[in-house]
């Protein structure tokens, strides 16, 4: 996904680029009278926008959003680029690192491999949605206490995954925690401390 063009143009991609690629638009453009008129009036831009944006109703951290998005926008880019919820991180952007993990209807998901439009009607929880006011979530507290990070880049994803790991019933042993946290890579190697944090939260019984 081209982040640069997203920033320059909040509604999505380069319009010209889309025109070149859209067969539907090409078909219309082949009709000379319409094509000439459209180009004169700059209607091509409006037309392509109407066709590429789709309505999306999505609840994020308890707040409803009524949006229009391009089909190719990922849930991760929606969160970060459109809604400025930058707590969810973009690591590999290919489903290999887990930094982008969020909960979709309570289920942990790689937001980088999920199209935003396919989450219509879903309830999303991101790292920003965990704390209650100034009170951190027990998993956030435990990560701080056990030093479950160094650089912190993978931490949002680790915490979202760790909470789900307990909910799924996969946090009953160190072996299982390591297996069921394997979708979250930590280049700093804080794994031992992350396991400790999860075990403490699991034992505390609040999650």
């Amino acid at each position, binding site marked *: *996904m081209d982040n640069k063009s997203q920033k320059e143009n909040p509604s999505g*991609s380069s319009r010209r680029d*889309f025109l070149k*690629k*859209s*067969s*539907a638009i090409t078909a219309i453009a082949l009709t000379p009278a319409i094509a000439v008129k459209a180009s004169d009036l700059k209607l091509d831009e409006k037309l392509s926008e109407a066709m*590429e944006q*789709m309505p999306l109703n999505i609840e994020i951290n308890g707040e409803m959003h009524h949006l229009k998005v*391009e*089909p*190719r926008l*990922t849930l991760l880019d929606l969160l970060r680029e459109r809604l400025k919820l930058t707590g969810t991180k973009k690591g590999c*952007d*290919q*489903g290999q690192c*887990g930094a982008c*993990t969020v909960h979709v209807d309570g*289920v*942990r*998901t*790689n937001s980088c*491999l*999920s*199209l935003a*439009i*396919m989450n219509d009607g879903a309830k999303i929880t991101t790292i920003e949605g965990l704390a209650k006011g100034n009170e951190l979530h027990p998993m956030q507290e435990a990560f701080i206490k056990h030093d479950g990070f160094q650089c912190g880049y993978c931490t949002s994803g680790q915490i979202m*995954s760790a909470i*789900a*790991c307990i909910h*799924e019933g*996969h946090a009953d042993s160190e072996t299982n925690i*390591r*297996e*069921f946290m*394997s*979708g*979250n890579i930590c280049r700093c190697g804080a794994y031992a401390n992350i396991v400790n944090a999860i075990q403490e939260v699991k034992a505390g019984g609040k999650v």
Partner: protein
Amino acid sequence: MNNFQYTRVSSPAAAIAELSKDPTAKLVAGGTNLIDLMKYGVMAPDKLVDINHLGFNEIKKDNGTLHIGATVRNAVASGNADVLKYQPLLSQAMLSGASPQLRNKATMGGNLLQRTRCGYFYDISAPCNKREPGSGCSAIEGYNRMHAIFGASDTCIAVNPSDMNVALVALDAIIMVAGPKGNRKIPMADFHRLPGTHPELDTTLDKKEIITGIVIPDNHLAAHSTYLKVRDRASYAFALISVAATMDLEGSTIKDVRLAMGGVAHKPWRLTAAEEFLKGKTASLENFNQAAEIAMKGAKAYEFNAFKLKLAPNTMVQALKTASGIKA
């Protein structure tokens, strides 16, 4: 990622109509493989047809036969009580693949259609007959450590990356398919194909067809089964070699046995000759070793994957030992 049109369909007929209307349209359910490939530019469909609302999300039991809908998530199927009871091999194989997050999204039908993880298939600057027919194969003379030792051709030596598929072929699963001409059933062993001269085709599924579900017939294999996966790290990596081994034992006599290998071929590789050898014999290390020797007949390695010629039979023997429970 190129932009594309997106549409949701509410019936299999509508999905088939979309595929018939637009040859570049692709079905999407979990999207964990397709969206990744679209980001790399390996695939660029003009239209995505969302099939998550077709009602193919149930697991039903008919006596001991399981019917698993095409859009059931891998995480749901692997944790399902009936799957665990009747087909533990399938659950174990699925849990050894990908990560919890990916299994939460990835579907049964999507996993069947998972594309190869050959690095040259993903690298759009490299020739690849699977991605671009006729352009050549970069892997045959390239870095082919992950590649096939069985059934490859001079156009493609890629392997099928799925763990689930290895279990399904061992369990004689049947793939339920709907298309413009009606419904049909494809035996799992015939669902994936060898590369031959058309490596761009992974399966025998027609472009206008849609997978509706997977049927796994009842068997007497649940008590003795294992999926052994050897990989570069302990979790979340593709198989170098994997073996699905499951058998019906009467005392120490093998009444029935199923064996399949992953990480070795363009399709999940059923080891029928080794099965035939073992049927009626005693579960013993000696017989397992002989079976492994039979299984490896015709294997051919390339520059960087010769280690598989030893790793494959060793993994098979270890899997047979675990499944049968013999100590030796």
